């Protein structure tokens, strides 16, 4: 059932995001062509190129904003708006409905990041001389030197990617928990959700602050700081995100499962 729900979410996101991705790629190709054709020109002559680059930047920002708005908006309208009458009539558990939203939001966030990266890289690679420089770098053993240089940090890079995923999931579930609290109000649900989010932020800051003070005042701080090398810090951060996901996920689940209020 989870995979079917994710499939449905993919369609709902895709109908809005895929056209934006298409426009971003086309615009980045145009910027690439323009940069290639008029690379010698200076500002007044190349105003068109500058305008294209500006539009591309704005479009990339718009893609990220729309991804966030969709992630939050679909949870609210699809589960707690009129479409909730359909979704909560499906023969599936509340947890499955929530997970489908979280997973599809993460997937689309990565798609948006990947498209933004591609949209930036196309003009960079199209800039005269870039490809030749990269090819030279390959011939001179630059690539293998680069790989050797980053080899000791491979585990850090993998952990950093996992941390980004965990933090993204935590942010999404935290917003969902705030919305789930907000739906307990008969009226002014959006205000209720916003207040719940602010309250959760305050609690989070207090907990993080208290944890930080406790660690820094500990006699073992010096040892800890040595033990907690970069890799250790990443692991701790991932575990904290997972704890946050567990707490916020439970709040969301219990409120939608036991206190659903589709008026």
């Amino acid at each position, binding site marked *: *059932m989870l995979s*079917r729900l994710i*499939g*449905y979410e993919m*369609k*709902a996101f895709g*109908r809005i995001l895929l056209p934006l991705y298409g426009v971003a790629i086309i615009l980045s190709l145009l910027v690439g062509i323009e940069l290639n054709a008029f690379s010698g020109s200076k500002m007044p002559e190349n105003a068109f190129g500058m305008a294209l680059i500006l539009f591309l930047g704005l479009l990339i920002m718009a893609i990220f904003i729309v991804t966030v708005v969709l992630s939050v908006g679909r949870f609210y309208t*699809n589960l707690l708006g*009129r*479409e*909730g*009458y*359909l979704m*909560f*009539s*499906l*023969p*599936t*558990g509340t947890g499955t409905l929530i997970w489908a939203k979280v997973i599809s939001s993460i997937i689309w966030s990565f798609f948006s990041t990947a498209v933004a990266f591609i949209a930036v890289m196309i003009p960079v690679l199209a800039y005269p001389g870039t490809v030749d420089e990269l090819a030279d770098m390959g011939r001179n053993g630059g690539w293998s030197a680069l790989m050797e240089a980053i080899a000791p940090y491979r585990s850090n890079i993998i952990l950093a990617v996992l941390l980004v995923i965990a933090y993204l999931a935590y942010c999404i579930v935290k917003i969902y928990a705030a919305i789930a609290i907000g739906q307990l109000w*008969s009226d002014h649900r959006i205000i209720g959700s916003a207040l719940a989010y602010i309250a959760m932020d305050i609690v989070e800051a207090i907990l993080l602050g208290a944890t930080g003070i406790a660690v820094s005042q500990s006699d073992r701080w010096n040892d800890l700081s040595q033990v907690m090398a970069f890799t250790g810090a990443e692991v701790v951060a991932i575990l904290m995100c997972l704890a946050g996901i567990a707490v916020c996920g439970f709040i969301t689940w219990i409120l939608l499962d*036991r*206190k*659903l*209020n*589709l*008026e």
Partner: protein
Amino acid sequence: MAEIECRELVKRYGRKIALNGINLSLEHQRIIGLAGPNGSGKTTLIKLIQRLLTPTSGSIEIEGMKPGKETKNLISYLPDRDFLPDWMKADGLLNFYETFFEDFDREKAERLLDQLKIDRGLALKKMSKGTREKVQLVLCMSRKAEVYLLDEPLAGVDPAARDYIIHTILDNYNEDGMVLISTHLISDIESILDEVVFLKDGQIFLHENADDLRAKTGKSIDDYFREVFAC
């Protein structure tokens, strides 16, 4: 075992009591009218059965189970409002129902949509309100469910459409199951009802066999309803 059993069911919205101590037992193979004026608690009762609301106190059982994942497999629910994603096309909605409901009969749904000459390639938001309501009804009645919960299916539609809705319900429901129709337009559905439940101020005012009620009062159910709920 009763198909639906409510015991001392109470639902409050803040200080307002929507349902107050409902005890109700509804059986298989019956078409039941749930009648009452606006605000009497009809929609609240249906939403509680479908678990879109949680009761303040009391309990509900559907075929011996509390409302949840399992009971949603047994119930085909038609809410009193547009509830389908309006960006989806009728064909997409058929796929959706086929994907999520094992008892959905796609061929029947396609046949009904074709009879209504509804363009299956058209998005719901491009359809008229009446057409959207027909699509919703077709999807709901194309399931071979144990329980059909139909919340005000006749409200706000013209008399010709009402006839279509009533015929669609009668021709397509699973006769081994049960249909619970909430309405205040009794005269339109009186002829198809086996039982009636009158709700008044969140309480059961009456629960009778339709023929027995007519014999006892010497009136049609519609006339009796008007007498009971006269302003």
